[in-house]
């Protein structure tokens, strides 16, 4: 399972890549593997206010629907438009072309609530099926 070192993670299998007050958000390799073929990603539009730990959308695989929980608080600047036609990018490149949202952070202190890669790896070991 791929868990890049330069990202932060929440317990809902969402990663965030922070560059000053800009962040990119996506789902982890573990999450895409658990979901299986992703058919549809329901994301908010640019301008939406994300709130840490609140649901901001859903991701739908051939078999199930899962809520997406925000790892940070902030304004959505951009969404990954490619996912409209190619939701499978989330399966193929979850940390790359399968990203979900670009966000302007409004509360950087909250980043302390997230796990680093080794914390997330331990979390998977202890909690995952």
């Amino acid at each position: 399972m791929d868990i890049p070192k330069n990202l932060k993670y929440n317990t809902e299998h969402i990663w965030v890549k922070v560059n000053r007050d800009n962040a990119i958000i996506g789902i982890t390799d573990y999450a895409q593997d658990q979901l299986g073929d992703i058919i549809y990603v329901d994301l908010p539009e640019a301008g939406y206010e994300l709130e840490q730990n609140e649901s901001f959308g859903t991701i739908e695989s051939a078999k199930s629907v899962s809520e997406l929980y925000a790892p940070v608080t902030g304004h959505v600047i951009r969404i990954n438009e490619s996912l409209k036609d190619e939701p499978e990018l989330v399966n193929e490149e979850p940390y790359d072309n399968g990203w979900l949202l670009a966000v302007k952070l409004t509360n950087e202190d909250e980043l302390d609530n997230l796990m680093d890669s080794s914390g997330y790896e331990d979390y998977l070991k202890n909690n995952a099926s």
Partner: protein
Amino acid sequence: MENSQNKKTPLYDTHVALKAKMVPFAGFLMPLYYKSIIEEHINVRNNSGLFDISHMGEIIISGSDAGKFCDRVFTADISKSGPNQIVYSLILNEKGGIIDDVTVFKFSDSEYMAVVNAANTAKDFSWLNFQGSEFAKKGNEVSVKNISDEVGLLSVQGPKTRDIIYSLTGDNPQAGSCGLFSLKQKSKPLGELKHFEFGCVLFRNINVEALISRSGYTGEFGFEIFVPAEKTSILWNYLLKNSALSNLLPVGLGARDTLRFEAALPLYGHELDETINPYDAGLEKYLSAEKDYIGKEALKNIRNKAKRLIFFKLSGKQIPRHMQKILNENLKPIGCIASGTYSPSNKFPIGSAYVSDSSVNPQSLKNFFIDIRGNFEKAEVVSPPFYKIGKKSA
């Protein structure tokens, strides 16, 4: 669901070794997919796929009055069929509600086998067993036996299925013993089996004898293969070892569901349950007019359909799910979703729904809305199936 409460098929360890995603289904831990539902689905449509369906139930009905008994508990004409033939039928309760949909294999006038949905094996067996004892009280000779745990069942489906199965088998056209079963009538050669006929084959190199039927649940050409439980993994591994013969890939329950739904085949618990009668489900052609069966009397009074099953496709991407509400163009609820899925062959979501509002005429219904978690998605009524062999449809 607790894992420890779930049963395992003889192939459980094999699925785990193949890294399948295992999920509880109908009281069994089953593979949902090995790699990808969509890939597995497309491979069945283009090549061939191997399914473990050992979770399904097998109930033997035997005795000199077995035929008469089958004609009473199943809605279709069973006893009239020939030996080595299969009949699709419903089991109804006294009120005309659907207890299960099954296939009935006829070995002889005194021996039949019902192959039943895994989720219903215990219920069907207890119903058939009870009806059997009532029938016996009236001086008939019939016995009902659940042999599900002794049977391993594999399904090989898809246009290239012949290439692998014909190459690995030799015909076994003798009457008599065939693995767990015994054929009273000698088997046709495999290549001559028509849809819904069965016979006996020998998988040569592994020396496994199997009952084989031209049947399936995918809308494709295929076989279902019944072997003794302890031989199941030998056969599974042998078929996969020879997978190059037909580009055979293992297929999980996820693709089994998308395949059956594209072919518009009903699934118990979705299109069918005890609150639904055969007219609601559009299955009246499996009701015999020529005999009496349990539920027939009740059906006489409910021929005005209370619900109607319709099929639809969506232009949006969200997938409708079981029990979501459907609404007319004024957003008034008119029914609910039976099945909903993504169609890998068509690349859009498809579904079925029961219209329960009697003021709606399903024949003239063209469009409606589905409440998918608060989004009203527009659906278009289509005539099933969504997939037919050699035809792009819907």
